[in-house]
């Protein structure tokens, strides 16, 4: 085979392996979202980084021994990768890990660690192949790096398309094909190897068979499937979620307590089919034959309150799902209902398998289904369009109580979101939001605070006259009205509470005794909190309350994060060893992930380097460590910040992850390629100038984006999907291009000056990336996205300062003597 063809084969293999790596990463995020909950997405990012870093360390340390054997070792890596995709996935699904038992069962920590290590293997192998590519073509490091980035970018885009058609559980099997192709390319001209090589993954596939996702026994779908006569009637998938429709006579979900419902008189609930999203949150489809009589029960939940305040309203339901709130609107005489649902699978199911069952609910003349993210759709509507905007109860009671959503960005409950809802209301219109309540109280208090602030920011002078809040034992419904509530409306709230046995926790002029009668709390906490939120004591309440009840904002859209570290001692003291009763699970998982990432970085990267590398250059090593660690943190901080920022604009988390990753990887690759070409012609002084220039521009762009992205997103909210994806790529391109420069340039400088420090550069960068992904999330939760971006810029500044120490005077002298440093 000619060297040219061999090189082409190598390049194609690198491209394929890189694509497989990123696609596998995103597929695993989906697998873990189904098996457990979505906060494990962060764990996967750090697992992947750990695999990358570890193999960087391994290759760098073994460099001498690898010499001359790069090609067979690369082929071996590709082969093992092919086999590990299925093997590691299948093995991971046999680890009996359960999030809920983390705090009570010590073995769970071991299981989590096992998951961490098993899933890191394929990423180790991906990186192994790429590093050997570097070794095989030392003069084309820039090109290999570019191919790696390009392949990753293509993988990120490709997996989203794949997830429309293929179950997340099947993705590892599908990815075996490109991985095997990469192996064949690396083993070109060695047919015997082909045969032996392909036998291994084939054998493994036969051995494991199809391994379904191991669903946590605590997920809604697991419970539903145990019900008498339960059967899966349909399944739909999109990159957003796998939606499983389950029918059983015993499924009876209501949007909260049915208070005083006379079932004998008004009849049993209509038959339901539960739609389980990623095996978790449920939304029910009710059997509907066009007669609304059987839906009388919907007047016995707190969420029926707004229908006592507006007559024949034009309603928008955000998060319409299976349509129970739509049915409620129709039952209560709505003139028209706009049903907004972000997941395309729901409408598809209601048009196909569940069409007859649901009475073609979404095809009625008085119902308009809108497939869109709620905020983005409302942004495109004329002001004053709706008389009632309802945000549906979006998650299940248990998931809400457990705080598994603590890490979910939710742009539906931020101050900015509520301001938008207010703008879209008619002059006498009302916004109604219902939430599951927790003990001790949190959700409804935060929502009340958000309503107060949104009202003030919308120019409502006296929000006290615009608010109402009623509760049952498990739900709270909060009303924010465009105009001051009239005497008639105030009386209507009171009589609704009285009739149904709901406590009125807030209404203008209400007293504490009136607020705590039907579901008696030991202390009228909701009443007290509402009063303080409407007085000068608001900031005192935020400071003193045991939970974080400050309104969420677009900069910090974590409505469901209530945990405060300063309350931890009180939780521990109060709770008979069950401190976790007060802490959100998502948050616990994040802290556990950070701890593991730090330990893994220490044991897998830093310690081996310390032990095995000959460390005679202390001071120089310090400079290298600082430079590459700072770059690792900076890159991951920006990446995470932009993924979260673009979620609002691109509507789906998966789109945001895929678009931002694609843009960052591809354009950083281009940046590194261009830098590499420039380096070949220049010297290290020029290289340093290049990095400093890039860092300055990154800082300028970062600040610009902080200021300009929110208004730009609002302006472009109505654009079609493709236009928003394309404009996102364009926006991210210059930043990513610049971010691609510092790393390869620094590496080249280090490699020229002190080759023995290259392992340190790889290792530190990898370890910092492992930790950076999770730390960035923690920073976003506590301080906000803007802070994450600013931190990233700070890390870049540190890197720029450390740059001076990368090429000490001795090196420069040698460079001059050599007449340039090109390798």
């Amino acid at each position, binding site marked *: 085979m000619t060297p040219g063809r061999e090189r082409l084969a190598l390049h194609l293999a690198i491209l394929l392996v890189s694509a497989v790596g990123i696609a596998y990463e995103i597929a695993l995020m989906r697998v873990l979202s189904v098996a457990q909950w979505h906060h494990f997405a962060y764990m996967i990012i750090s697992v992947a980084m750990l695999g990358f870093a570890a193999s960087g360390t391994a290759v760098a340390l073994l460099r001498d021994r690898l010499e001359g054997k790069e090609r067979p070792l690369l082929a071996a890596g590709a082969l093992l990768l092919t086999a590990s995709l299925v093997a590691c996935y299948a093995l991971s699904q046999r680890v009996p890990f*359960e999030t*809920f*038992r983390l705090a*009570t*069962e010590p073995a769970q920590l071991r299981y989590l660690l096992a998951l961490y290590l098993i899933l890191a293997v394929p990423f180790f192998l991906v990186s192994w192949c790429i590093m050997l590519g570097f070794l095989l073509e030392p003069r084309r490091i820039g090109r290999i790096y570019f191919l790696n980035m390009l392949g990753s970018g293509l993988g990120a885009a490709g997996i989203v398309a794949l997830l429309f058609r293929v179950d997340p559980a099947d993705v590892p099997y599908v990815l075996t094909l490109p991985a095997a192709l990469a192996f064949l390319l690396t083993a070109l001209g060695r047919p015997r190897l082909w045969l032996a090589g392909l036998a291994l993954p084939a054998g493994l596939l036969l051995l494991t068979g199809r391994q379904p996702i191991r669903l946590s*026994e*605590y*997920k809604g779908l*697991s*419970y539903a499937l*145990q*019900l*008498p006569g339960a059967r899966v009637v349909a399944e739909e998938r999109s990159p957003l979620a796998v939606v499983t429709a389950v029918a059983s*006579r*015993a499924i*009876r*979900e*209501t949007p*909260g*307590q*049915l208070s005083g*419902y006379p*079932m*004998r008189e008004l009849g049993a609930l209509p038959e339901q089919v539960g739609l389980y999203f990623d095996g978790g949150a449920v939304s029910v489809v009710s059997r509907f034959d066009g007669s609304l009589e059987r839906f009388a029960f919907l007047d016995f939940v707190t969420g029926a309150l707004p229908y006592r305040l507006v007559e024949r309203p034009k309603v928008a339901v955000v998060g319409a799902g299976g349509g129970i709130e739509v049915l409620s609107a129709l039952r209560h005489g709505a003139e028209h209902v706009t049903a907004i649902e972000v997941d395309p699978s729901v409408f598809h199911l209601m048009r196909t398998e569940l069409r007859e069952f649901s009475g073609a609910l979404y095809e009625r003349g008085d119902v308009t289904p809108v497939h869109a993210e709620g905020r983005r759709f409302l942004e495109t509507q004329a002001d004053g369009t709706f008389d009632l905007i309802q945000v549906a109860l979006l998650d299940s*009671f*248990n*998931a809400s*109580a*457990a705080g598994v959503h603590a890490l979910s960005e939710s742009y539906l409950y931020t101050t900015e979101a509520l301001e938008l809802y207010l703008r879209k209301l008619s002059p006498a219109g009302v916004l109604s939001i219902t939430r599951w309540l*927790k*003990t*001790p*109280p949190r959700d409804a208090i935060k929502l009340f605070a958000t309503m107060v602030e949104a009202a003030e920011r919308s120019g409502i002078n006296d929000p006290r006259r615009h608010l109402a809040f009623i509760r049952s*034992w*498990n739900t709270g419904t909060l009303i924010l009205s465009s105009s001051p509530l009239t005497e008639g409306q105030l009386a209507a709230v009171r009589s609704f509470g009285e009739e149904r*046995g709901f406590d009125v926790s807030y209404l203008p002029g209400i007293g504490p005794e009136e607020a705590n*009668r*039907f*579901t*008696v709390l*030991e*202390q009228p*906490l909701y009443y*007290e909190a509402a009063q303080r939120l409407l007085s000068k004591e608001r900031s005192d*309440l935020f*400071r*003193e*309350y*045991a*939970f974080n009840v400050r309104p969420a904002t677009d900069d910090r859209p974590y409505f469901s994060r209530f945990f405060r570290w300063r309350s931890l001692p*009180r*939780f521990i003291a*109060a*709770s*008979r*060893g*069950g401190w*976790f*009763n*007060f802490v959100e699970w998502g948050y616990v998982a994040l802290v556990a992930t950070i701890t593991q990432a730090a330990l893994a970085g220490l044991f897998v990267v830093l310690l081996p380097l310390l032990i095995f590398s000959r460390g005679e250059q202390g001071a120089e090593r310090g400079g290298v460590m600082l430079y590459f660690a700072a770059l690792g943190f900076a890159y991951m901080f920006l990446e995470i910040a932009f993924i979260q920022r673009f979620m609002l604009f691109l509507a789906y988390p998966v789109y945001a992850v895929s678009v931002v990753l694609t843009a960052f990887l591809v354009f950083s690759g281009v940046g590194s390629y261009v830098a590499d070409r420039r380096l070949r012609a220049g010297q290290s002084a020029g290289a340093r100038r290049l990095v400093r220039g890039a860092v300055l521009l990154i800082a300028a762009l970062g600040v610009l984006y902080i200021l300009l992205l929110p208004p730009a997103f609002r302006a472009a909210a109505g654009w079609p999907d493709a236009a928003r994806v394309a404009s996102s790529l364009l926006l991210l391109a210059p930043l990513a291009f610049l971010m691609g420069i510092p790393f390869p340039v620094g590496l080249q400088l280090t490699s020229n000056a002190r080759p023995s420090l290259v392992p340190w550069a790889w290792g530190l960068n990898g370890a910092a990336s492992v930790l950076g992904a999770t730390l960035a999330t923690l920073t976003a939760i506590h301080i906000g996205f803007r802070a994450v971006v600013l931190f990233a810029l700070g890390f870049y500044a540190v890197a720029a300062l450390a740059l001076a120490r990368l090429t000490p005077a001795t090196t420069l002298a040698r460079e001059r003597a050599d007449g340039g440093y090109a390798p």
Partner: protein
Amino acid sequence: MQRFAEGPISRLLPAALGILFVSGPVVAPPVQEGDAFREARERMVREQIASPALGEYAVEDGRVLGAMRTVPRHLFVPPDLLELAYADRPLPIGHGQTISQPYIVAAMTELLQVGPDDRVLEIGTGSGYQAAVLAEIVGKVLTIEIVEPLAEDARERLRRLGYDNVEVRRGDGYYGWEEKAPFQGIIVTAAASHIPPPLLEQLQPGARMVIPVGPPLQVQMLMLIEKHLDGRIVQRSLMPVRFVPFTRNE
């Protein structure tokens, strides 16, 4: 939790071995057990349930404390968690279900305010432990479990332990047990989006219903529902621990 469903022999084996180990050869009667478990139970009642340190949260009803001292909780937990049987915590029993923390079981039993002449309905049998504790106090316990393997295991376990005043039914508890209504107490351990209206109907006026509320392996609060003689329903939300979320920085 696959092991749990293997069969009664394998389930009891570790417990039996534990008894042999502690007390030497078992002579008679067959349900006799080692001092270790009796002591563990005594300590559980003393430290977790009746401790004065719990203040107003301490369980005081002598009958409830007696029942907690009598029922062999270790025979209701999965064998691999045997050493945690009397620990101050809930334990998983498979199928996403839980055996509640000892204190919660005692507190719920006390809250019901039931006695020897009463008939109690339980929705969500689980391991059968709560039913056994109730059976020590009341005349009749009727309990419904929707998950078949749990229902079978609990029925067998309660029969073996001689609780012949407990009736276990496998099925959907939503509509209660109409033939045996009204009840002088109802416990609903299966969390739901609403309290089934038929259960409220089957609650005798003047009687109480208790519902533990919280995600798996946690109890955030106990809902106490009182049906007054005039049919009026009043609900009380009780936290199992003392915690005031408002603080003042003095």
